[in-house]
């Protein structure tokens, strides 16, 4: 089919933005239905990007600062999400409002239960850790280091090589989505060990976390991991603090 063939040969010009707006619209319409065309366009665009890399020039001084400053005060676009129709109400006999009220009530009950249990557990842990934390803080040669994280907020570590322990606290870390958690690591030349999950940050900061088994050469790092934590870091640390010299 002639028209189709004509359109197909436009892949190159399209990939280089060498088409006018009307042609671009027409071709994009065609692309939606032509898999081989869109595959070809992807490859040609990658090729064009390599041609761009080849003409790199040192940007003017000051551009970096201006871009970063502007970014810091520019809100980002949300991701595009699939728009799905709301599911139909389950039972017509139950007004939607009532469904909402019941759901909210259940949520409150669950939340209370969780926070009560969490509070009790935290209290127990805090008591159990208190002596150990004190031992670190009182140990001779303890070092206290504070660093900002790439997500904002600060973390502070109190390091005792003698006790081979680190006490870790954080303040001002952004709240994570429910499916994510901050995980603390001891990053060592031989291997990286998990040092536990941070409790969700509250307004004041996290409760201190105690990590044992610190070795010379270790760094302390924090990553964002899926809820429940990971066996090894799966994202770039938001902060890394070398703790032993």
């Amino acid at each position, binding site marked *: 089919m002639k028209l189709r063939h004509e359109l197909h040969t436009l892949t190159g010009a399209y990939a280089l933005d*060498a088409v006018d707006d009307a042609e671009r619209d027409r071709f994009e319409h065609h692309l939606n239905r032509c898999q081989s065309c869109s595959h070809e366009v992807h490859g040609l665009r990658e090729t064009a990007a390599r*041609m*761009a890399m*080849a003409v*790199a020039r040192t940007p003017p001084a000051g551009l970096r600062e201006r871009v970063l400053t502007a*970014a810091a005060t520019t809100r980002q676009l949300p991701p*595009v999400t699939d728009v799905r129709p709301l599911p139909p109400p389950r039972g017509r006999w139950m007004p939607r409002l009532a469904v909402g009220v019941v759901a909210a009530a259940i949520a409150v009950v669950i939340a209370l239960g969780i926070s009560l249990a969490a509070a009790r557990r935290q209290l127990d842990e805090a008591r159990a850790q208190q002596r150990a934390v004190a031992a670190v803080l009182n140990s001779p040669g303890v070092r206290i280091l504070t660093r900002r994280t*790439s997500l904002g907020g600060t973390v502070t570590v109190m390091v005792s090589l003698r006790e081979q322990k680190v006490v870790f606290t954080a303040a001002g870390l952004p709240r994570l989505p429910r499916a994510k958690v901050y995980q603390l690591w001891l990053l060592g030349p031989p291997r990286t060990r998990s040092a536990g999950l941070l409790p969700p940050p509250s307004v004041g900061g996290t409760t201190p976390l105690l990590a044992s088994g610190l070795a010379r050469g270790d760094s302390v790092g924090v990553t964002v991991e899926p809820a429940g934590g990971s066996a090894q870091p*799966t994202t*770039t640390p938001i902060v890394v603090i070398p703790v032993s010299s």
Partner: protein
Amino acid sequence: MHAPEPAPGRGGRGGEGDLDWLLDRVARGDQAAFEAVYDALAGPVYGLICKVLRDPAQSEEVAQEVLLEVWRAASRFDRAKGSAQTWVMMIAHRRAVDRVRSASAEAQRDQKSAAAAGIVSVDEVAEAVEANLDRERVRRCLDSLTDLQRESVTLAYYGGYTYREVSKLLSVALGTIKTRIRDGLIRMRDCMGVNW
């Protein structure tokens, strides 16, 4: 076993996968990741825009817009559709040609001299950001094209001309230019080992 490693770059070169991964971080508001993306791509972005616009002041302005757009729209990057590097360069090129094709810029531009420059200065004017492997390879691959393919591709991409304009500048039939751009790019793709 438990969690995905950062996806390797589709192009199979070191660093591309990292950029994809960094851009995902940027989408989540990670400013440190954005700095890393800036450091990797500001040079090519600025260089490409200079190539098309030629005016350094205007190029700087557009480069700033483009880089800020990378920050703003990072959540729209879809690695299934191409590498991070390609996504950023698409934005840069599109913005540059939009600027060129806006009516006022059109009037200012001396098409003929720009066209001639587009052909002869494929790479010699660009200032190296660092030892640039891409530069050598692109030069070598451009050399492997026929003259018409090379002129068509470089005028369209580095010159920012539509293929209709290229056809006119080179006094070659429209259909021929269209296919030469495609053939030339395909040859470049294969020569540079782009895996798509």
